[in-house]
């Protein structure tokens, strides 16, 4: 039986300005935690991308993830119009810095995430299969704005992270049903009793991406849930790493 390898899609480094239990301030600290948890690879972002400066946070992240082959990066984007982050050679910069996906915090960074702001750019990342990671966890987007985004860019590869403590199947299942490149990150889906099993039964295991939510959440929580979920071993392997590998292989930078 093939062993389950864990590829964590939801981790940040850096210490939040208001403090956080167990946050790690550099890649060495994160590697130590990953070894402790049996996690082989991770897509990482830096909390300063959200809390401080997306520009400087992206730079710090690139520096930190360059220290290990086990890391891939997630850069934060801002509206292309201000050219703070999205410049002419943006995709080249992503490739050179091992950045494989993007995230966005519209309400916190004060812009509107729609076709007016991101029309051409979101068309480009849809065509290039570059995943956009969104979080429901930092008061950054509403369900309405997420639905609008997916209606406007139905081919967009979108990974919804930190889906919430209360089960959100009534919100997410219509999106899974309508948009084939829409995925759920697992760190809070695993919290829901039967959430992973019910989603797999309805949509297949290909639509869930493993994440721990470290350092906010406990990695062993989502690991233990997935290992003992009432789904097949192949489904577990898909969720733990294969789905994310498949998404990244399709990417054209």
């Amino acid at each position, binding site marked *: 039986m093939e062993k389950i390898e864990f590829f964590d899609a939801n981790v940040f480094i850096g210490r939040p300005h208001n403090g956080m*239990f167990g946050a790690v301030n550099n890649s060495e600290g994160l590697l130590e935690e990953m070894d402790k948890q049996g996690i082989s690879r991770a897509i990482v972002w830096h909390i300063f991308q959200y809390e401080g400066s997306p520009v400087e946070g992206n730079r710090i992240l690139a520096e930190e993830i360059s220290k290990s082959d086990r890391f891939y990066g997630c850069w934060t984007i801002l509206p292309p119009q201000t050219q703070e982050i999205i410049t002419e050679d943006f995709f080249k910069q992503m490739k050179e810095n091992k950045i494989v996906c993007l995230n966005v915090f519209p309400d916190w960074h004060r812009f509107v995430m729609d076709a007016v702001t991101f029309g051409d750019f979101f068309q480009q990342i849809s065509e290039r299969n570059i995943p956009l990671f969104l979080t429901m966890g930092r008061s950054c987007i509403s369900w309405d704005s997420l639905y609008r985004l997916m209606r406007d860019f139905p081919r967009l590869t979108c990974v919804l992270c930190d889906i919430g403590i209360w089960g959100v199947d*009534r919100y997410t299942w219509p999106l899974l049903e309508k948009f084939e490149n829409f995925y759920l990150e697992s760190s809070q889906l695993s*919290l829901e*009793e*039967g*959430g992973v*099993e019910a989603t797999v039964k309805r949509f297949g295991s290909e639509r869930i991406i493993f994440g721990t939510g470290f350092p906010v959440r406990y990695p*062993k929580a*989502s690991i233990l*849930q997935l290992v003992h979920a009432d789904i097949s071993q192949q489904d577990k392997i898909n969720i733990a790493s294969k789905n994310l590998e498949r998404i990244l292989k399709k990417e054209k930078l």
Partner: protein
Amino acid sequence: MNSLWEKFLENGRVKECPVYDMHAHMGSFNRIYLPFGDFNPEITKSRLERAGIKMLIFCSHWTLFSPDIGNRANIEVVRQLPDKLRAYCGLNPNYPEIIEKDVEDFEKYRDVFVGFKLLSDYHQKPVSHENYSPAWKYADKKGLIVLLHTWGGSQFDGPEQVRIVAEKYPGAKILMGHSCHGAWDETIQLMKDFPNVYAELCAVVDDRGGLEQIMDACGSKQIVFGTDWPWFNHHYYIGAVIDSGISDQDAHNIFHRNAEKLLEGLI
């Protein structure tokens, strides 16, 4: 490293470490889809056994949100799976006449109930409200468990309210459901001040840090495990508790020993 981790990871359950879920529910619910909300004795038993849950103590959503259904929902469910389930007699202070009747009838259902459940944030009356007093007095006298929904900052079931009932009813075994979530300093003080007050971990271990703070200050002897099942997954919470870095002995206390003491004479 906690030695129980490898065993839970390997088998999903550990024979020498049974788990008591002291905070659970039953039944479908209006505001979220619960894949295992509908009670089915075989399926419920199977879900509990996957994670080595020896006993689950619940109060039905339908009891808490419908005075017309009341505790019938609890009685019917427990009697279909008595080796795995017990219930809290649900109290709604907006219907004091039902509380009086439920307390009067409590002895008839000793095979079902181990105590009472208060959901004051939702019922909008503080846990010290006089409408609850027949149940509090009864729990105090009989040494019953009283599971409170508690939340930091709440005027209905925050730390100040817990203090009032803990002082007044020292014979009751008070479980702070969600451990006055977020108000960890006050939770710790309550545990230090009152030996009959326990922290319960549902929602506490959604994020790292709260359990570690409580453990550092109070140790593990006044902490019980709970999940709001069928809301939250047993393996998820078991993994979270172990990942907090606790010792094997502390894990045994939290997962079963403290609950076994609380339930002594009640099941």
